[in-house]
């Protein structure tokens, strides 16, 4: 599962993190020696969490297909737990919620692991969509019924269906790229997350004009344009490890960084509506799994399908 290109990418990410950790510690020593500056403390917490996330991802890559599928199944579980904590449901939905976690989620990843594309691409949008409301309806409560079943379906689509398209990249068959599919995952996550980080950095440096003041005070046009363009430039420079030409890589990068931005925007709208700042608390400095994964979740299915249509033989 490891290829020299993957090692290069991981080494590059490792170097970035070492630099970030040094900068974080220098800033702390200068500006926040007793932990009094919350921005510096949050920055360091974020960098430390990045180390953990990168190490988990690297271990999953080393473990191969089962490792990656299992890692994303666990991420889906944590994300779904965060999402369904905030949705509307009542006693009558208990069995459909249990089914989401212990039936639909494992089945989706099982279909994926057995490479049954025809099933995992429609299982949640068709079968879960039609059958889950039946489970809720049989319990007889009609109060806010449509809201309850819609929000549950939304949670499944985001946290399980869309997220499962990251490991699905392992099952594409691209002539001349055999045995290196894991690069597609590393590349997708790297470019999208780099775009998130660079949007944050550009926004902090020169951000003035807010994109959606009602949704998020931290999303600015300067951050958006600076972040997506610079992340796309870096992604394009890495075209040699992908199946894409430089021009194709640039197009892909622009597409996934933009989708990533949309993901952050949509998920912010939900958080704003529910009156919360973060989805969870398990990733120190970042919030919850959904806070970190929202951009990748929105980018993954589009990246998967375009790669599949254009480059894959399956």
């Amino acid at each position, binding site marked *: 599962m490891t290829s020299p290109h993957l090692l290069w990418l991981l080494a590059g990410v490792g170097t970035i993190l070492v630099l970030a950790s040094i900068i974080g510690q220098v800033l702390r020593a200068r500006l926040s020696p007793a932990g009094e500056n919350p921005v510096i403390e949050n920055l360091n917490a974020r960098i430390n969490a990045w180390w953990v996330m990168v190490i988990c991802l690297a271990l999953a890559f080393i473990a191969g297909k089962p490792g990656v599928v299992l890692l994303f199944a666990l991420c889906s*579980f*944590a994300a*779904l*737990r*965060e999402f*369904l*904590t905030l949705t509307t*449901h009542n*006693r009558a939905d*208990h069995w459909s*919620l*249990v089914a989401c*976690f*212990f039936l639909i989620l494992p089945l989706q990843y099982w279909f994926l692991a057995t490479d049954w594309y025809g099933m995992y691409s429609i299982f949640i949008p068709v079968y879960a969509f039609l059958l889950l409301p039946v489970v809720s309806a049989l319990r007889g409560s009609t109060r806010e019924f449509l809201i309850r079943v819609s929000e549950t379906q939304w949670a499944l689509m985001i946290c399980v269906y869309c997220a499962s398209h990251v490991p699905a990249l392992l099952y594409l068959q691209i002539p001349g790229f055999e045995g290196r599919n894991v690069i597609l995952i590393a590349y997708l996550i790297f470019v999208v997350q780099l775009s998130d980080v660079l949007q944050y950095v550009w926004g902090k440096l020169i951000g003035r004009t807010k994109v959606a003041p009602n949704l998020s005070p931290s999303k600015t046009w300067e951050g958006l344009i600076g972040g997506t363009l610079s992340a796309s430039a870096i992604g394009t420079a890495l075209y040699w490890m992908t199946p894409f030409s430089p021009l194709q890589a640039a197009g892909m990068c622009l597409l996934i960084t933009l989708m990533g931005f949309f993901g952050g925007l949509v998920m912010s709208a939900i958080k704003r509506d529910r009156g919360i700042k973060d989805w*969870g*608390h*398990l990733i120190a400095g970042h919030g919850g799994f959904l806070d970190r994964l929202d951009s990748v979740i929105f980018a993954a299915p589009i990246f998967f399908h375009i790669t599949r249509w254009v480059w894959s033989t399956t």
Partner: protein
Amino acid sequence: MAASPLNSNLRRLAAALTGQAISLFARFMTAPRAIWQGIEPVPHQRIYFANHSSNGDFVLLWTALPAPLRRQTRPVAALDYWLTSPLRAFIGREVFNAVLIDRRPEARTEDPVAQMVQALDQGASLILFPEGQRNSSDATLLPFKSGLYHLAKARPGVDLVPVWIANLNRVMPKGEVIPVPLICTLTFGAPLHLDPDESKDAFLARATQALLALKAPA
């Protein structure tokens, strides 16, 4: 029955492992988040009193405490529930080291307040559900039993810490068998003490209000 040292060591090991397993399961299901709003998680002697909506309440509170605090904290639980089967008795007595009190005044041989005071005098902190039973009604809280007042009067130096446990009743509604994983929050409020001339009703009302005030997220 005299247990051999090896046997009792094995039981202790089994109890520790069972405790870890139960705690891990609680984390998997609820990813509990402790918000120390009115007090810090430091090893002072305390009585944590919380709302009681699920059988998992004390497990979750116990899990949410940092390990050094957890070791010295004993839940107060109903003897008439925890001694009904050998497994329950093992979990109640040996895993959680519960202070088992009898809720049936006509049947009991020991005074619950005296038992709790004895545990406090041995240095333990306590987890207490002053509603006295699981709340499956529509009311936010059931009226508090007077045990909390008697403890506050008997040992005025101990911090009484209100803890609001949110969402656990949605994880495992009454009558359901399989829990659904949802994030639970435990909000720890500022400690209470009995005022010298405060009446029982006034104190219990104040304790109720202190607990209810934690319900809205900070």
